């Protein structure tokens, strides 16, 4: 049986790397392999993974579930559930290769699905509702089906990860055969050894994927906060928490990406107190999203169908470097990982603490493209409606 209900949160150090082509040109998997393998010292062979965007052309309108299973029985259970709850368009095993050092890998299969709403004969075309449906489905598989786990669930994207060094995992999943307009990669150095494939990065929810180097000291607070909104943190990893917070803030609360990053790694009060125009917004972010703040050392890269973002903690306790070359933008733990694949970048810089590097594709580059630069209306909170209080302005007198 998989030891996936780890009794405590995992602790790890890591190397990360990401690339995006702003015009949506596809980049071969070999590039990301080279970059991440150059940071081999940052891992210890206990986990590596890749996220790729744009790898399922022709299937862009289906949520692609990458499912990892301990045995075929678990897969059967997943398929039974999918038959009930989704329109299943296509399924196939994820192509893998035999790798000498990888013993007894789990089974991997991918399913291209659309949600099947109860009582509905046709599909509803409400993006938020569809997304929420898939989130729930993923949570259900992950928490209820023993031995099965969804490692990614976005459209036209997928995650490949497991226990091993990055080159081994790349070989196993035939990463070099994929082409994507965004790639992220991860090389892991866990200090405790769960040795479970699902514990490797990237972590995902829908098309959000996260690779992360660091330890979130606020994990306990973040986890409990997320539970208030129906997220179940089953993996006990910091990264899972980051994925859900992004989903909550950006997708459900409709915050612009930049504002969400400010919630994750906000400035200090002494800086906020000095601000003029932005003071009110930042004060509100800190008060309302205090429990979403990621406290502790981290550098993360997160990607979605349309962009790649790099972010450091509020005092920059982990490395993160960014570089640009034409339409390509690179982000990695080390400059060397960038130079390995882009020897003469136009610009190289180290982003400041808490200052996100946000790179989106040019508008209308890909189907179902998402952009989070602007805010959207917030999803209603039932409880909030029930506990109605009359609000008067905090800053009205100022």
């Amino acid at each position, binding site marked *: 049986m998989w030891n996936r209900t780890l*009794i*405590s*949160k995992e*602790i*790890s*150090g890591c190397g990360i790397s990401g690339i995006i082509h702003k015009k949506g040109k596809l980049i071969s998997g070999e590039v990301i392999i080279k970059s991440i393998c150059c940071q081999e010292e940052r891992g210890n062979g206990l986990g590596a993974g890749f996220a790729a965007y744009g790898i399922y052309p022709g299937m862009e309108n289906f949520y692609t579930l990458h499912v990892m299973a301990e045995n075929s029985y678990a897969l059967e259970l997943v398929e039974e559930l999918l038959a009930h709850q989704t329109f299943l368009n296509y399924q196939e095993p994820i192509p893998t290769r035999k790798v000498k050092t990888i013993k007894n890998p789990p089974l991997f299969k991918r399913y291209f699905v659309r949600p099947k709403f109860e009582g509905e004969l046709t599909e509803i075309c409400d993006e938020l509702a569809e997304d929420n449906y898939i989130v729930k489905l993923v949570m259900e598989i992950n928490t209820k089906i023993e031995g099965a786990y969804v490692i990614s669930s976005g459209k036209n994207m997928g995650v490949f990860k497991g226990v091993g060094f990055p080159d081994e995992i790349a070989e196993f999943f035939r990463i070099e055969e994929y082409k994507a307009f965004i790639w992220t990669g991860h090389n892991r150095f866990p*200090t*405790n050894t769960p040795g479970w494939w699902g514990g490797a990065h990237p972590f995902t929810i829908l098309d959000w994927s996260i690779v992360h180097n660091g*330890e979130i*000291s*606020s*994990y*306990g*607070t973040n986890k*409990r*906060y997320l*539970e*208030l*909104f129906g997220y179940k943190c089953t993996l006990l990893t910091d990264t899972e928490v980051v994925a859900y917070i992004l989903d909550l803030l950006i997708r459900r*609360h409709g*915050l*612009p990406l930049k*504002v969400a990053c400010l919630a994750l790694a906000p400035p*200090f*009060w*002494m800086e906020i107190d000095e601000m003029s*125009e932005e003071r*009110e*917004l930042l004060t*509100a*972010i800190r*008060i*309302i*999203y*205090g*429990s979403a*703040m990621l*406290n*502790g*050392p981290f550098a993360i890269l997160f990607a979605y169908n349309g962009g790649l973002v790099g972010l450091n903690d*509020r*005092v920059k*306790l982990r490395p993160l470097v960014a570089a640009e070359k034409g339409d390509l933008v690179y982000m990695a733990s080390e400059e060397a990982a960038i130079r390995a694949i882009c020897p003469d970048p136009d610009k190289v810089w180290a982003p400041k603490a808490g200052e996100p590097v946000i790179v989106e594709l040019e508008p209308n580059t890909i189907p179902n493209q998402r952009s989070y630069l*602007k*805010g959207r*209306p*917030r999803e209603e*909170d*039932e*409880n*909030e409606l029930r*506990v*109605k*209080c*009359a*609000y*008067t*302005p*905090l*800053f009205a007198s100022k």
Partner: protein
Amino acid sequence: MGTPQFSTFYPDFYIERLENRCIKCKRCVKECTYEAHLWDEKKKILKEDHTKCIGCHRCEAMCPTKAIIIKPHPSQFREHANWTPWFIKNIYKQADQGGVLLTSTGCAVPIKNYFDHLVLDACQVTNPPIDPLREPMELRTYIGSKPSGIEVEEVNGKFRLKKPLPPLIKLEIPVMFAAMSFGAISLHVHQGLARAARDLGTLYNTGEGGLHASLYEYGSNTIVQCASGRFGLHVDYLNAGVAIEIKIGQGAKPGIGGHLPGEKVTEEISKTRMIPVGSDALSPAPHHDIYSIEDLRGLIFALKEATEYKKLVFVKIAAVHNVAAIASGIVRAGADAVVIDGLKGGTGAAPTMFRDYIGIPIELAISAVDKRLREEGLRHMTSIIASGGIRCSADVVKAIALGADAVYIGTAALIAVGCSMCQRCYTGKCPWGIATNNPELIKRLPPEVAYEKIYNLVHAWGHEIKEMLGAMGLNSIESLRGNRDKLRAVGLTKEEMEILEVKHAGEV
């Protein structure tokens, strides 16, 4: 010879006078408000009446030659594990007088203290500890009801908050001063608390005794209380602070009201409380306009209406068995914060049985309330204030990790101004000039001294909290709130750990 008074036969304390040191200055006679030191004018000697000594240590502290030692009386009853002197003497007292046993401060029975069974975490290697002397470390906390999220709009390329937040209270340190009424404690202590609250960026609470005219200037650091007796309650009072606390119950005496003995009701108190001089101030057990949760909602909104929705309304309850459900009801009734006062919370006067045996420990109550509010999806929209039995800054840290937003301290603040926990506040004779209104006695504690001591205490706790946060790798207190990962239990049962939602030390 009348009926023997058994309770006077066996003193609790023994006053030892070192004759070689005593210079017969008679300072002790003056200092002892219980008349335990006597001057025999004829024989020109000092005498002691051990039966009168209540163990406040005032004479010992004030004796210029340190000639006095106060110790437990050496005379002993035959040992009995069940019938300890405490029970025997209480029975004597009641047999003598036929009354309810009265006492002060908080629960004195050694009921398990969960704080003492919880240890904190610190960073090693994988995660760097933060040094608060070199890096910013934030304790700022906002209290009040909050929306679940914010909405942002873009104006001229800049993001702006679309709808302002409701009124909230900013605390620079999540430690506030618990309700202690003017009457129960002296005006000087109130003045000290108010000034300290202002300088520390926190709040003090008037208690149920109204607000003395000299304290209106500290309004933005004041919580005014509305208890069942409604003493000194008028619209200016309600508007004087930043929050109004409806006191439903108190940890030291859940289920009963307050009693300020007439002896403590002096001219000033009578003015502030709006009751005649010398009359007992009795607050009833229930609020007679709150017999149900919907009545509470009525009062919450009546207070909000009276203050034009500018003031927050807190509701304070004693931690009792069903505290979680009650707290959830309070939040739904529209309160901006729930105050939970645990078993060990203090009081100026309470029946001993209530003080010692009614209510549940605050640690369990915080966790239970936090859990319930999370399960109901309400936790992030309200604030929990924990009170009762907070003795040091580590207790504050643990309370917050268990789910509180902020804590109240009462007893700790009084100890800071000299209280020696003699547990006789209800007599009005506090030899330290704290729990008294006797114009001569209150001079023993000037407001400046009270201010300085209280300020120092909380300031020091602030430093310690920052150090502990830094060691845990956190630089902001909100990342500690409800963060059970930072706690481990030592010597607790499975059930206890489940309620506290903590793992045992040694578990990974």
